[in-house]
C-alpha cells in the first residue's frame, strides 16, 4: 500500500498581523502534537517539502491586480506550492493520497484578486485544480469545501465550469461571514448544479454533518464520477472555534475524511489553535492514512455535552431540496440554453474585508453551443487608500471551442488598439497556457511565466 503524503508548512515566520487569527502561532500546537506523536516516522506517511508556485501557476487561475507579485508573497507561493507538490506526488503515484497542511489559506480568494479577502489572497485549491487539469489532463474534479465558512472564492472561480463540481457545506450565511452560500446558488447558466451549497444551522454537530455527507454529498459524487476529489479542509466547524458556532469534533472530522476519501486535502481555516487544530489535523492524517483514530479526542471531549447532536429537520429539508435540484440538473441547463441570448451578463459587488476594498464587476459569458464560452470581467475596485483600479479581463477556458478562442483574442487586440477607460487588460488563455497583462498607460505587455 502506498503511503499518504504530507506537506506540513506552518509558515512560522508569517502572519497577516501580530494579533490576527492568521498568525505565526496558528499551527504551533499542531506541530507539537504531530511531532510528539511521531506520526511522520510511520511507514504510512511520507513528508514532502513544498515548492513555490510560480507566476504561471497563479495566473492560470487568477487575474491578480495589478500583477501576480502584488497578490502572491513568498508565503502564499509556498502554501499554494505545497498543494501543487501533493498534486504531483498523487499523479506520479508516489502516494495514495495527500494532505497539504499549509497556511496561509485560500478559499475566499476569487478569480479577480485585488487584495486579501477573508484571510486569503490566492486560492490554493483552485490553482491546484487548474494545474491538474492542464498538466495531467484530468477532466472532472470535485471540491468538497468542509470549512465552516462558505468557500465563496472557489465558487466564484468555477461558477461557470461544468467540469468542476464545487460542494460547500457551511454555517448558514445569515449568521456568518461571508454571508453567501445559499441553496439557490447553483452555478452559471451552463453549469447549473456544478455548484452545490448546503447552509447548516449554527450548532450542527457530527451527526448533522455526516447526515449531509451520506445523504447528499456522497450520492452526488457517485453520479458526477470525478477523476479526483479534493477536500478544502477548514477546521472551524469545531465546537471550540472562536469565529463560528458549530459542534463538530476531531472524531467527526476523521470520520468525514474516512467516508469522503479525498485524494487531496488542503487546509483552509480553523482558528481554535490549541483545543481543536492539533487533534483535527491528527484525525485527518490518520483517516487518510488508514490509521485507527479510536484513541483520538480533545482534552475536554469526555466531559463535553454535545447538544443538537441529531440532524434536525431543517438539515433534512435542505438536503431534500438539493437532492431534487440535482435530479433535474440537465433539464435546467437545456432550458436555460434555449432562453439565453448570445451573451449572459451578471453584475457583482465584492467586498474585501481584510483590505477594505470595494469591487464592482460586470461579468459577460458567451452562451456558446460548443463549449462553456469565453468570459470577460470588467472590474472596478475602490481601494482603502482612495485609489481606483479599473481593469478588463478575458478568460478562455481550457476546453474552449476554436471560435471562442479566436473571438476572445480579437477582443483583446481590439481593446489594446482602443484608447480605453481601463488601466490594464488581462488575457488568460488556458488552452495555450498564455497569460498576459497589457498596461494601457505605457503600452507594455508582459507575460506571466
Amino acid at each position: 500500500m502506498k503511503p499518504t503524503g504530507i506537506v506540513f508548512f506552518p509558515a512560522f515566520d508569517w502572519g497577516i498581523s501580530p494579533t490576527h487569527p492568521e498568525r505565526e502561532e496558528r499551527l504551533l500546537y499542531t506541530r507539537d502534537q504531530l511531532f510528539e506523536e511521531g506520526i511522520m516516522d510511520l511507514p504510512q506517511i511520507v513528508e514532502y517539502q513544498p515548492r513555490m508556485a510560480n507566476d504561471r501557476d497563479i495566473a492560470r487561475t487568477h487575474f491578480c491586480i495589478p500583477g501576480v507579485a502584488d497578490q502572491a508573497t513568498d508565503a502564499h507561493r509556498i502554501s499554494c506550492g505545497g498543494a501543487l507538490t501533493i498534486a504531483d506526488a498523487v499523479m506520479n503515484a508516489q502516494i495514495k493520497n495527500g494532505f497539504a497542511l499549509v497556511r496561509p489559506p485560500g478559499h475566499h480568494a476569487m478569480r479577480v484578486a485585488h487584495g486579501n479577502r477573508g484571510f486569503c489572497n490566492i486560492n490554493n485549491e483552485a490553482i491546484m485544480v487548474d494545474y491538474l487539469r492542464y498538466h495531467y489532463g484530468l477532466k472532472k474534479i470535485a471540491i468538497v469545501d468542509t470549512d465552516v465558512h462558505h468557500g465563496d472564492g472557489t465558487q466564484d472561480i468555477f461558477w461557470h465550469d461544468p467540469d468542476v463540481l464545487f460542494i460547500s457545506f457551511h454555517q448558514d450565511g445569515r449568521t456568518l461571514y461571508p454571508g453567501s452560500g445559499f441553496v439557490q446558488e447553483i452555478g452559471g447558466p451552463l453549469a447549473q448544479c456544478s455548484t452545490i451549497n448546503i447552509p447548516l444551522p449554527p450548532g450542527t454537530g457530527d451527526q448533522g454533518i455526516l447526515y449531509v455527507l451520506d445523504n447528499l454529498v456522497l450520492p452526488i459524487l457517485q453520479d458526477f464520477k470525478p477523476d479526483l476529489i479534493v477536500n478544502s479542509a477548514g477546521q472551524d466547524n469545531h465546537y471550540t472555534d472562536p469565529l463560528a458556532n458549530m459542534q463538530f469534533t476531531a472524531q467527526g472530522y476523521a470520520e468525514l475524511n474516512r467516508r469522503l476519501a479525498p485524494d487531496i486535502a488542503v487546509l483552509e481555516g480553523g482558528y481554535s489553535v490549541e483545543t481543536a487544530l492539533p487533534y483535527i489535523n491528527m484525525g485527518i492524517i490518520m483517516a487518510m492514512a488508514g490509521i485507527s483514530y479510536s484513541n483520538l479526542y480533545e482534552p475536554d471531549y469526555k466531559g463535553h455535552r454535545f447538544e443538537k447532536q441529531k440532524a434536525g429537520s431543517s438539515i433534512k429539508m435542505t438536503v431534500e431540496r438539493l437532492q431534487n435540484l440535482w435530479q433535474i440538473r440537465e433539464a435546467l441547463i437545456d432550458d436555460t440554453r434555449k432562453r439565453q441570448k448570445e451573451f449572459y451578463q451578471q453584475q457583482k459587488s465584492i467586498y474585501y474585508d481584510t483590505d477594505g476594498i470595494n469591487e464592482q464587476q460586470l461579468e459577460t459569458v458567451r452562451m456558446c453551443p460548443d463549449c462553456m464560452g469565453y468570459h470577460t470581467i470588467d472590474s472596478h475596485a475602490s481601494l482603502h487608500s482612495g485609489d481606483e483600479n479599473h481593469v478588463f479581463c478575458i478568460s478562455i477556458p481550457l476546453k474552449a471551442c476554436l471560435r471562442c478562442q479566436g473571438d476572445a483574442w480579437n477582443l483583446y487586440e481590439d481593446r489594446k488598439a482602443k484608447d480605453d477607460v481601463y488601466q490594464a487588460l488581462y488575457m488568460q488563455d488556458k488552452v495555450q497556457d498564455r497569460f498576459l497583462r497589457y498596461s494601457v498607460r505605457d503600452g507594455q505587455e508582459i507575460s506571466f511565466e
Partner: protein
Amino acid sequence: MYIGIDVGGTFTDGVVLYEGRVIRWAKSPTKTDRIRESIEEVLGQLLPEQEGGKVSRIVISTTLITNLLVTNQIETAALVLIPGPGLNMLDFRLTEKEWILQGGIDFRGREIEAVDPSEIKEVGGQIYEQGIRKAAVVGKFCQRNPDQEIMVKSLLQKDYPDLEILMGHEVSGELNFPRRAVTTYYTLTTRQEWRKFAKEIAVVLQALNISVPVVVMKADGGTMSLAASLDAPCQTIFSGPAASTLGAFALTMDDKTSVVADIGGTTTDLALILEGKPLHASKGARIGDKFTHVKALAVRSVALGGDSTVRIKEGKISIGPDRQDKAACFGGSGPTPTDAFNVIGGGGIGNIGASRTTLASLCGGELSQVEKLAQSIVDHFIDRLEENVQSMMAAWEQEPAYKVWEIVNRRKVTIDRVIGIGAASPAIIPLLALRMGCEGFVNTYSTVGNALGAVVARPTLELHLHADTGQGVYCINGHRRKLEMPESFRISDAKQLAEEELEARAVTHGLTDYFKDREFYLEEQFNVIRGWSTTSRIFDLGISISPGVVKGYKGVKV
C-alpha cells in the same frame, strides 16, 4: 600523544598521532564477543614500549551497543507508556513487554487526564510477577511536564523498591514520544553492559599506565567522556561511520562539499560533508525499523564492498551482498570488485595476475574477455554508488522546512569531492570521482581514516530549551524549572539561560575550550494571542557545540 581506536564489525583499527603526524597504526580482527581483548591487542601494537604515560588523549569508537541492539541481546525491561490521546499505542507495539497507563499531558505541559494509582499498582504487580526488574516509564509530552512520570516511578518503587526505573524526560527533551520511548528503553536495557565495558577498559588502561580519562565516539560525529557515557550508552551507536566521516574531514580540513565513501569488505558507508560541516540525519539514528532520539550523522549503508562476491546470473552481473573470501589479488579466491578495479586500474594492488585469473573463471576461462568483464563490474559498482549519492543529496534537498525564509533561501550545493576511507578506496575512489565529475581524494591515511577521525574528533554538546511564560516554566532537555519573572521574559533572556546552562555543562564535562564555538541551531519565538492581545510567549531554542576537530589539530602531515 593521541590515540584513536575504532572497533569495527570486522577489524579494529588504531592510530597514534604525535605532533601532527600519524606515527603508528595497527589493525587486528575484531572479536565481536570480546571487544575488550580487541582493544587490548591494538593498544599493544600501538604502544610497544612502556609509553602509556605520554598518552594525553585516548578516544574509543566501538560497535558494542550497536551489536547488542541489532542482535537483540539486551536485558529484559518493561516499557510503561502514558500516551494520552492520539495514536492508539496498542497498534504500535514498540517492545515485547509493554503496558499502557491512563494519564495525559498536552503540548503545553498541562495535565489533561490524571494517572490512576490503582492501575499503576496493578501494572507494577504484573511486571514484578513476570520477573522483570527494570522499567522505562515514558509519557507523551513528559519533557514539558515530568510530574506524571515521576508519580508513576514513585508509586511503582513504593511497592517494589528494587525495580530499576528510567524516565523519558531524563533521556530526551525533544519532541517525538515513540523515539523517546525507544531511546529510554534501549538506554535502560544496555547501560549495565556498557558500565561493565567501561570498568574493563579502565583496567586495561591502568595496566598500560595510561592515566588520562577515556573519551568515546558518538553517532553525531563528536565525543563524550566515558564517565558521561555511563548514562547515555545509546549515543555510542553507529560511531564507526561517524568516526570515518570525521576522519575524512580531518584529512582535508576545508569547507568544500564532499561525499565520504568508507569502503569496507561488504558495505560502503556514504556520508556527506556540506561546506565543511558533516550532515546529520534529520530523524535521528534508526535501529531496525525504529527511530531513536540519538543524534547521528546521515549515513547510508550500501551493500557493496571491496570483497563482495561477484556473480553472473543469466548474463547479468550481481555484486554482493555476501562475501566469500578476500580479493584474489590479496590471496583470496575472488572474484571481487577489488579484482575488477585492479585490472581496470592497471594493477598496483596486490597480485594482478590472480585478479585476471579469477575474473576469467567468470567468463568461461576466456582471458581475452577479462578486460571487458572487469569494466562491466566496475561500471555496475560505480553506478550503484553514484545512484546512492544522488538520492542522498536529493533527500537532503527535499528535507521539510517550516519557515518561509528557509524555503526561499534553500541552499543548493554541488559535490566538489569524493573522499575515500578504507582499504579498497585507493582502487575505487578515482573512478567514482571521474564518473561524478569531481575531485577524488585518497591518501596514505585513508585506510585508517576511521581511527584518525576518532583521535581528532572534538566533544559535542547539545541542549534544547523550551520556555512557556504562560505556564511560568522552562524545560532544558526535559528538566522543568520555574521562570523567575515570566511576564518580562524575552528571547534574550531565553538565550542567556540556554548559554549559561551550556557553559555549566561544558565546565562539568571538561570542554570549556569549545564553548566559544557554540551556535544556536534553533531560535523560535511565538506570541500566544488570546482575544486580540499577547497573553504570553513560547520559546524554542537549540544550542550546540557541533562536530569538529580538537584544539590544536591543524591537519595531518603526510
